[in-house]
């Protein structure tokens, strides 16, 4: 490949060690709770062995200049940790990464100067300052040339559609406006690389759509963008390439189209039932040709559940599936066969759904 990579990540790994919370003396002999996935070490009884979590487990990828690259994964997959490593807030336990050609551990100041970061959540701004005052403050920190600062801020406020509210306190902003202001801040120094951690989390559908348009326009202006998300539809629509990450590992990396094409011969069945189908899922998984099964509450406002079954051939699976469901007492309310989506890619790779 002739293009220079703007972000280069090689075998990055991050282990967190946290001392287990000290037990109160009279609770010493209580049974310890099981450890979550990706967790080793124990905290039973009196010995206070530290608990280690492998948040990022040896990931590698390269992001070309001018590309929107998505890290797609469920909660706790290691997305935020990866962002924090790249923006020099957290050191990797091992492995290396370069941003705009600078090593994140050896040249952190240069990395910070070539990058804008948008953190998830809306608390990252000074709520007691106006939008403009926030930008003025950070412009000095990003060392924006003084003579150009005012015009840069004006143009960013305009671009992010915040002009009308520029002189209002951020505490009076909506979530979407705060997110746009955070993006404006990340762009102050016009950095080649922009990192966005869950940029549309907490936004209403319309604001989320607008924000995706904004991200695309940033790419068109030449910024290289790394964003994280746990919405497959968003990753599918927005990203040029996607790395699917789970338990700190990249389990697939390609363009959305290629990822889906890999499943083209598969069928995705969606069955709506009248109650939580916990009991039968394992039986469904053991049916021949079934590659993945997941269930979640249907988002139709009715108290129903959706079972999603990924199978190599729906014609051979369907009958057995219905038999199993009826045998377990579930009432089948609705059924669809779909084109595989990114969600199915995830189910096929991990056997579980991206949803919570």
């Amino acid at each position, binding site marked *: 490949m002739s293009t220079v990579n703007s972000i280069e990540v090689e075998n990055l790994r991050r282990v967190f060690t946290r001392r287990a919370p000290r037990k109160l003396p009279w609770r010493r002999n209580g049974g310890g709770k099981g450890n979550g996935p990706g967790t080793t070490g124990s905290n039973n009884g009196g010995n206070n062995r530290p608990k280690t979590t492998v948040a990022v487990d040896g990931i590698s990828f390269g992001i070309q200049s001018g590309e929107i690259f998505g890290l797609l994964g469920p909660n706790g997959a290691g997305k935020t940790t990866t962002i924090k490593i790249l923006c020099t*807030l957290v050191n990797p336990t091992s492995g290396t990464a370069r941003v705009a050609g600078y090593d994140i551990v050896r040249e952190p100041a240069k990395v*910070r100067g070539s990058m804008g*970061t948008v953190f998830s959540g809306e*608390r990252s701004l*000074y709520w007691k300052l106006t939008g403009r*005052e926030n930008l003025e403050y950070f412009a*000095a920190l990003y*060392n924006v040339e003084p003579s150009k600062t005012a015009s840069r801020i004006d143009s960013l406020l305009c671009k992010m559609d915040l002009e009308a509210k520029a002189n209002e306190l951020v505490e009076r902003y909506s979530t979407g406006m705060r997110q746009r202001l955070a993006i404006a801040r990340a762009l102050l*120094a016009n950095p080649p690389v922009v990192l966005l951690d869950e940029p549309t989390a907490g936004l209403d559908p319309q604001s989320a759509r607008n924000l995706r348009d904004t991200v695309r326009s940033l790419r068109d202006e030449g910024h290289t963008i790394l964003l994280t998300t746990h919405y497959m539809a968003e990753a599918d629509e927005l990203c040029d390439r996607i790395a699917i990450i789970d338990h700190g590992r990249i389990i697939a990396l390609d363009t959305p189209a290629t990822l889906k094409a890999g499943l083209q011969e598969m069928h995705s069945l969606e069955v709506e039932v009248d109650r939580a189908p916990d009991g039968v899922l394992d039986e469904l998984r053991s049916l021949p040709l079934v590659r993945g099964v997941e269930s979640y509450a249907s988002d139709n406002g009715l108290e129903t559940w959706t079972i999603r079954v990924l199978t190599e051939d729906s014609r051979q699976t369907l009958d057995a599936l219905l038999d199993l469901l009826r045998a377990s007492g579930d009432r089948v309310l609705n059924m669809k066969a779909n084109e595989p989506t990114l969600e199915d890619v995830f189910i096929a790779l991990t056997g579980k759904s991206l949803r919570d």
Partner: protein
Amino acid sequence: MAKLSRWLYSQLRVIGATARKEFIIFTRYPANAVLELIEPLMWLTPLYFMGKAFSAGGHAVGFEGFTGTSDYFSFVMVGAFMSSYIAVAFWGMAYSIEGDMILGVLEPNWVTPANRVSMLLGRSIMFALLTTVQSLGVLLIGALLFNVKVSGDIFIALLIIVPMLIAILGLGLGLAGIVLAIRRAQTAIDMSNWVFSQISGMQFPVTVLPKPLMAVALALPTTYGYDAVRSVLLGTNPLLPMKQEIIILVTSAIVMCIVGRAVFYAFDRRCRRLGTLGGH
């Protein structure tokens, strides 16, 4: 040379922008701003009456034996004045880290290419300026209401405060590093600020302290700052000749800045290694 002046300029800009930001936020809570400015009066007033109660014919005789002045209230007032500068290190610098963590704005500050020491300096300089305004106000009110007679040269007193303030800023840097690591530090800051002020002789001459505590007092540069300023303003007997006290202050300013900076960056690196930055 041009590079150096550009660097200096960008540092000053960061310091200025941070001070301005802190000031604007301070004014966004107007009731608190007013209260903070008049707060010292509240706890100084009882000390005035206490001084009165211990005096005979306006002279605290026992006190005079230790200090060379019989005016206990003026002594305490100058002590309070100086202590508010110590608070700059503890609250303006160290606590501001915790404040930012609670607000969630530490991370966006930390991912900018700006020098972290400059960011911390900006915060404390705003507090130091406010403190100066506050102290001058207290002195003025003291002169009007409580008969405080400042005989010496305020300008020289302010000159002595400069190296002490620099030493304190060095201390503040080190403390800021510690807060970065332990995160919940409000109570620790409150306690150590109080102990530091008291042992430096905020309300009494350190010569009344028992030997071990006095040794601690004499190891603190602030003790000499308090002592020298009182000597200039009130004509008290200094612990050491003035010249030596000033040498001690200037030396400790340099040493504490170097040590404080090293401590701060050591903790900053540690946080990145442990991955504890941000969150609380």
